[in-house]
């Protein structure tokens, strides 16, 4: 061996390989070693990511980095490794079984064109668990779970990843003399590369189907599955494309704070719970947030809890706000002191709480929703003549609430409403319009 030249990447002290006599896995492992020798890669820059199954035993015999993971998930670690360190050569050894249970990852890795090399040890069945059928088992084949012959169509792995963006796709058998060169080519390819390597599981598939190399090739031909390099393109590799696309983000301020400097004051003495109920899509949450920010500008401590259905723009939207002079994380658990109810969705959701409001509570409600059953003092809000859009009604009602209760100065509310310049004008108009609702 000349200095710097490696003649093998296998750990010879650990040989022989653990596979059954005649198992195609041994051939592929030897070919992979030959490919690595051809490329003379630094073994520390090579990561073999192995799946579960007989093929997954292979990494133990290589003197490279190894990550042996779960059944079908090898491609996910490979993706994470490549994303974190695009310089690494990440090679996935996966069985046909793994491409089935992990088909989702295979498809998406191809679609992203993430720069990993996937070598499929395709022996047409599950070797490790006893010769059950896999997604690549040919029609008619007998396996432990298809005793009368397989009824399903096999997955064309190459076509599947090929039409979905894989950068380099090839098919051959484990007995192909050109396989080392092909593997080397796949490893050198920048994007997602896959070689579907057909081979024999002597313990099961050969036993159950009197199979041999000639039949392996015959089956490929019968299925119309092409061999050789089937897809090839030089589209952008994902881990680098990500970095390129987001390069200009680098150094931008991280989560810049949105300071609220108290400049006003509030006469509030005890914590006050305000419930704002309305319709989803009517900016209930944003109005409540502005109301809370106004409170913070007034030296109060506010919390805002929201309740909404899983849909975004239908049904109710409720914000429960607690304002207090102390900084405990008050989350509403007692009945509201003040309630604002808008829209039929808000009323429908909150009829129960409205009915249970105490006589000390105040209910501000769109007059059009009256009458309601409640012991609270009812303050009707007259929206009948407003020309304001419904998305501003919550801000309007909260302006009316502040005017009615004097919880904190309206000026603080206006300042909060103008915090986001794009919305300032509309928000301020809504507040002014809200001040006419009480009459």
């Amino acid at each position, binding site marked *: 061996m000349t200095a710097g030249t490696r003649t093998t990447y296998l750990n010879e002290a650990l040989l022989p390989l653990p596979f059954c006599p005649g198992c195609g896995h041994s051939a592929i492992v030897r070919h992979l070693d030959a490919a690595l020798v051809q490329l003379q890669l630094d*073994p*520390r820059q090579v990561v073999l*990511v192995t799946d579960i199954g007989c093929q997954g*035993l292979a*990494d*133990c015999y290589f*003197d*490279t*980095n*190894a*990550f*042996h*993971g*779960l059944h079908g*998930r090898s*491609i*996910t*670690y490979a*993706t*994470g*490794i490549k*994303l*974190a*360190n695009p*310089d*690494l050569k990440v090679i996935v050894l996966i069985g046909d079984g793994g491409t089935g249970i992990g088909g*989702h*990852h295979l498809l*998406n890795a191809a679609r992203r064109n993430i720069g990993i090399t996937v070598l499929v040890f395709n022996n047409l069945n599950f070797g490790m668990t006893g010769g059950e059928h896999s997604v690549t088992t040919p029609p008619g084949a007998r396996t432990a779970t298809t005793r009368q012959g397989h009824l399903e169509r096999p997955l064309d792995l190459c076509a599947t990843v090929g039409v979905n963006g894989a950068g380099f796709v090839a098919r051959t058998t484990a007995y192909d003399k050109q396989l080392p060169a092909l593997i080397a080519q796949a490893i050198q390819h920048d994007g997602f590369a896959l070689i579907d390597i057909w081979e024999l599981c002597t313990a099961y598939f050969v036993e159950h189907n009197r199979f041999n190399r000639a039949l392996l090739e015959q089956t490929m031909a019968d299925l119309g599955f092409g061999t050789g390099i089937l897809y090839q393109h030089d589209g952008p590799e994902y881990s680098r494309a*990500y970095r390129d696309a987001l390069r200009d*983000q*680098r150094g*931008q*301020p*991280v*989560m810049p*704070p*949105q*300071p*609220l*400097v*108290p400049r006003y004051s509030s006469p509030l003495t005890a914590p006050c719970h305000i419930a704002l109920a309305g319709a989803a899509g009517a900016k209930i949450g944003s109005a409540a*947030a502005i109301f*809370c920010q106004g409170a*913070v500008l007034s030296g109060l*401590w*506010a*919390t*805002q*809890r*929201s309740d909404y*259905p*899983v849909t975004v723009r239908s049904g109710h939207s409720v914000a429960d706000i607690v304002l207090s002079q102390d*900084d*405990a*994380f008050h*989350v*509403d*658990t*007692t009945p509201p002191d003040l309630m604002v109810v808008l829209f039929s969705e808000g009323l429908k959701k909150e009829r129960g709480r409205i009915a249970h409001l105490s006589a000390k509570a105040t209910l501000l409600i769109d007059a059009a929703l009256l009458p309601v059953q409640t012991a609270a003092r009812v303050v009707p809000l007259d929206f009948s003549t407003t020309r304001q859009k419904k998305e501003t009604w919550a801000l309007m009602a909260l302006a009316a609430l502040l005017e009615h209760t004097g919880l904190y100065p309206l000026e603080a509310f206006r300042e909060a409403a103008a915090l986001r310049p794009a919305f300032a004008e509309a928000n301020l108009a809504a507040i002014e319009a809200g001040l006419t609702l009480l009459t």
Partner: protein
Amino acid sequence: MREFIDGAEAIARGALDAGCTFFAGYPITPATPILLHMIRELPKVGGIAIQAEDEIAALGFCLGAAMAGARAFTATSGPGIALYSEHIGLAIMAEVPVVIVDVQRMGPSTGGATTTAQGDIQFLRWGTSGGYPVIVLAPTDVYDCYRLTQRAFDLAERFRAPVFLATDKDTGATRATVESARFERVPVRARRLADPAGPFVPYGVERLDDVPPLAHLGGPHLVRLTSSSHDERGYLTKAPPDLDRLNRHLAAKIEQHQDEIALVEADLQPGAETLLIGYGITARPVQEAARAARAKGERVSALVVRSLWPVPEDAIRAALTGVRRAIVAELNLGQYRREIERLARDDQEVIGVHRVDGTLIGAEDILAEGGLA
């Protein structure tokens, strides 16, 4: 400086301040805001954030990235934790540092996406095969969301293990006024890397409770990582002495260091008859109930548990000392109450205040249950 932010934002800030460089997640209410924050913010610090094809891939990406040098982070809710399950096992087995947020929503199954709950507390502990310990922290408010996220990253590095942050829809999504000065940034724990010059044994430890130093894929050493039972060098094994060593190590490295993980806030009153216990969203009502009861002349202690797993047994036993009964408040049907029952003496009564209707437990509920109202 005061701000008005929610738990998700505090969690994202905590992660970024803890040196997070990698996030992978899959959208799910109520955890999606964390995904969106990380997608937006991580590229600014040269990190990577990606929406994966599903939760299995999300955690898989994290595990691969972590071993290639990243500080990895993911966030989901109950259904996603279910899909994480097998990879949580891999993180334990291969000893991969990773932080996992569970913003709990109501279960079982799809349950209530926008409804709060604390139903995953035992699930997080026992959510993967084998039964080996994990670390679970539970924030009580927005400050805790920040603080405990940093702590989770710290513990993940310290123990080379998955660390969970068990929060809930209302702690995660409730916005609150915060004084930013109270977001105390703690120094980031340097990853303990194997000596680049020395010999490297991937899972070599001197004592069972030691944590093996880590070497990155692509670094100076050849690294072997595996989900399968392995010897110190990371080779598959079935040899009983190796298996025994491995499995006892996975337990010991966490269980024998409970004192480094335990995080409780004990507000004990001498001569107290009753101990109120809460965690997460039930912490504040527990503390409030204790204050209210004391104002009425009752002798009451309060205990907030922030490190749920491993159970901080010494601190809980100490808090239980002398009381006649404990009242545990939680948004499930008694999941952590079981742990308290296990630690209580036979003559101590353990009472649960449980709610599974999507509404919160208030101080008044705890007072009523305890006859303290």
